[in-house]
């Protein structure tokens, strides 16, 4: 973890409510895909945790959905805006366990952290398949970006307005894969957990206070005892997960 000031380079819409922000600065503490950053926004008390979509040298890409007052304010940040950030938070994905043909499954704004993961796995010589799930055609983003990396990409939409109709789990049939990496809404994670028996890593989301392990605001129960989503997570191994009812 490192506290640093990042400077906004770009902040553009990808869809109606999802935006892509590129920032530059000292990213030495950002070491793994699946980690997140915690942004201090003017006029808001708590920081906003956002997963890292990509790190390329000193350039950081974040993709976020405008859902509340904080992200709405963030949407107005222009080039040159400086943001106080805690970077390099969370454990991130471990690519060593992937086997040679990992499957990446993302839902909505769970898709972004899988981008840098796909890039890393492909650089390691692995054959990556990515299922990107959205509700409707106008919510789809990053399909081409994943394809450009060299991943096999399947897009699903719940209403069938683009790609394969249905949920991400409807796209599993016939796929050949060695391991699962996923990020998305908890019902999707749970459905995927049930739909496959292969080992994998699941990234969870919780409301956080601090983002670095101090407040115990985001604790969850796991097979291996209590874990803080912000510190021992957000990525849990399949075998650690205890689903809450």
């Amino acid at each position, binding site marked *: *973890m490192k*506290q640093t000031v990042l400077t906004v380079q770009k902040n553009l819409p990808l869809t109606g409510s999802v935006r892509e922000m590129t920032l530059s600065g000292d990213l030495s503490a950002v070491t793994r895909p699946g980690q997140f950053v915690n942004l*201090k926004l003017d006029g*808001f*008390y*708590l*920081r906003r945790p956002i997963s890292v979509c990509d790190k390329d040298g000193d350039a950081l890409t974040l993709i976020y959905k405008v859902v509340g007052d*904080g992200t709405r304010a963030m949407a107005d940040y222009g080039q040159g805006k400086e943001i106080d950030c*805690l970077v390099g938070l969370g454990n991130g994905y471990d690519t060593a366990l992937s086997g040679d043909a990992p499957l990446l499954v993302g839902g909505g704004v769970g898709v972004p952290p899988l981008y840098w993961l796909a890039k890393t796995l492909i650089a390691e010589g692995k054959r990556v398949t990515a299922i990107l799930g959205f509700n409707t055609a106008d919510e789809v983003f990053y399909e081409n970006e994943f394809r450009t990396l060299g991943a096999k990409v399947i897009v699903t939409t719940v209403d069938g307005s683009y790609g394969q109709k249905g949920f991400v789990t409807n796209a599993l049939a016939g796929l050949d894969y060695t391991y699962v990496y996923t990020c998305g809404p908890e019902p999707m994670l749970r459905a995927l957990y049930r739909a496959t028996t292969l080992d994998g890593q699941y990234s969870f989301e*919780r*409301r*956080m*206070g*601090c983002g*670095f*392990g*101090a*407040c*115990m*605001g*985001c*604790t*969850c*129960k796991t097979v291996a005892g*209590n874990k803080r989503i912000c510190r021992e997570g957000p990525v849990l191994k399949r075998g650690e997960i205890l689903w*809450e009812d």
Partner: protein
Amino acid sequence: MGRLNVTLCGIELDNPVIPASGTFGFGYEFADYYDINELGTFSFKGTTALPRFGNPTPRIAETPSGMLNAVGLQNPGVDRVIAEELPKMKRVFSKPVMTNVSGFSVGEYVEVVEKLDGEEAVGWFEVNISCPNVHGGGMSFGTDPKAAAEVTRAVRKATKKPIILKLSPNVTDVTEIARAVESAGADGVSLINTLLGMRIDLARKRPLLANTTGGLSGPAVFPVALRMVYQTAKAVKIPVVGMGGVGRAEDVIEMMLAGATAVEVGAANLVDPYACRDIIRDLPGVMDKYGIENLQDIIGGAIQ
């Protein structure tokens, strides 16, 4: 003594800045960010007799200039605190630590204090009778003068170390509770714990916190906390530890002028892990600006 030194219940502090319980764990995680021996001391995570998971999530909500928490005293229980957490703490912190304890019965407070009393690292006990996020204990002891005095008397018999009772702001007259624990043998009081509050999630039309209510902290509560510290300092002779929304050196000085001997910093640590270090570094400059030579001399200076 240096300009920043104060004496709290007979133990000298290098400065009055103390990270508050529940915002600093057992210290060692912050030691990755800076040398936590720069602190006066810190109050460690509230410890109970048995391990506690705490409340379901969401446990955190943002508010204007502050936050709500309903963590619910998550901790590994006193035995594991002694076996696992304190050894890790002692590797990075060499000063007496403020030892925060909680309970659901008078007997539980006593049990936890007795078990920790033999630990050399324990400087003071901070006895939390004001947690708003647990049921059947916590705050129920801190909102009734008789129950507060009963806990104080029992803990008083269990240790010779200084005991500081942590008081709730969720009462009509905090000085009544403060006087009750003073009469029962408390060496000090600390206040305020969080103010009971809530938020509603408009999308779900349900309380945002799984616990329905939570404790409000952050700059929003500072004026309320300052007023209660002032009233309490006027009402009792024992030292008062002030807290509630403190985020900068100026706030520390206001608290001390209102009667605080030392000052705890809570929510600010969660927004900025360097908050306490920076407050301590800023203190001499702010003291110069307002013509303050020594902090010990200004305690209660604004009381009239």
